[in-house]
């Protein structure tokens, strides 16, 4: 049972962090807009040695479609999202959350999950966490969230720093990748981006 004051405090801290991130990066990037448009970002003056340019270029990350299926117990939960990158390569190095003491990164192969130290976010590519594939694993939850709750998750990237995502808790059967009854979540839910 989280005391409302504690929850409010956590929320305030998140907002503060998010603001800090916006201010900090806003100064660096002259790139601003491009909101919502997925995929091609033809604006960057990329010419010549593409590979070198991609490593040197600043990553532009956008996290979308984040969700956390309501867990069965407080022992374990999984989280999913897509990190799209319209800039240079980056690496997801760790994840933290106020709902769990420990968040680990996993990929799944042949029904077995394998812990990863980090995940590459390729230049002009995407890092995909989805059902049956890669997942974020939340262990020893502080409480059992309910469908409709929002969980704060921070993704730490080697070059882009920290992106904070408000991750909606969805029904246990939620599986947007499988083309079921669930459409794309309303924009804004479970998203974050570098400016």
């Amino acid at each position: 049972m989280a005391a409302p004051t504690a929850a409010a405090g956590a929320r305030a801290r998140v907002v503060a962090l998010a603001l800090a991130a916006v201010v900090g990066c806003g100064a660096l990037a002259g790139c601003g807009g491009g909101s919502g448009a997925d995929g091609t970002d033809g604006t960057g003056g990329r010419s010549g040695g593409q590979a070198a340019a991609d490593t040197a270029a600043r990553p532009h990350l956008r996290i979308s479609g984040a969700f956390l299926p309501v867990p069965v117990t407080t022992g374990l939960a999984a989280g999913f999202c897509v990190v799209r990158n319209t800039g240079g390569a980056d690496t997801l190095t760790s994840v933290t959350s106020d709902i769990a003491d420990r968040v680990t990164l996993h990929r799944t192969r042949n029904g077995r999950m394998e812990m990863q130290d980090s995940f590459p976010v390729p230049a002009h590519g995407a890092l995909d966490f989805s059902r049956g594939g890669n997942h974020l694993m939340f262990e020893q939850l502080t409480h059992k969230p309910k469908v409709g709750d929002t969980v704060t998750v921070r993704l730490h990237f080697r070059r882009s720093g920290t992106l904070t995502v408000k991750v909606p808790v969805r029904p246990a059967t939620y599986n947007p990748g499988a083309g079921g009854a669930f459409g794309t979540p309303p924009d804004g839910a479970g998203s974050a981006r570098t400016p």
Partner: protein
Amino acid sequence: MRKKTLPLAAALLTSAVLALSACGGGSGDESSKPVDVQADAHSGRRALTVLDPPFTKPDLVLTDTHGEKYDLRERTKGRPTLLYFGYTHCPDICPLTMSNIAVAKKQLPKAVQEKLRVVFVTTDPERDTPAALGSWLRQQDPEFIGLTGKFATIQHAARQLGISIDPPKKEKDGTVVSTHGTEVVAFSPKSDGGYLLYHEDATVDDYTKDLPKIVQGQRP
């Protein structure tokens, strides 16, 4: 008529696994022999493979969540049965699969629900004791049956259904990681044969649509 390639590949894979297990086993159990699995070319759904001929129900005797002996063949004879191999320390596919089935089951008429048997066999028997399994499954559906026992027994039964599972393994940080099966096998109440294979991307809609047929032993 759409041609479906994915389930065919899955079926071929299944045959390959069966062939492998028969080579390794030498148990003399006739149901371990390779089965010529054919995908149904007309179902047109990637999450489902129709098996013809069907799988024989494994002769599996384990312990249920009340700590009592459970004979799969005897207890599920003449009952529509869904069988899945997974573990409770599984964050993604195991709870997803059981929740999909639980939600779909609730949409059947009460009397029909009572006929259906949903059996979850653990692939991590050391941690999934009858009590642990029971409390996890009750969150999904109190009628679900959970079975635990010797890993070798469980692995052998899974193999007979073309499902490959490895024993739990310790990670570098000390955490234990298990394998889950990637298929749910549906057994017909008419023949007791495993005639449908649902892959891990089967959704709650797939099960909701198909359960009314499965409880009658019909093809969806």
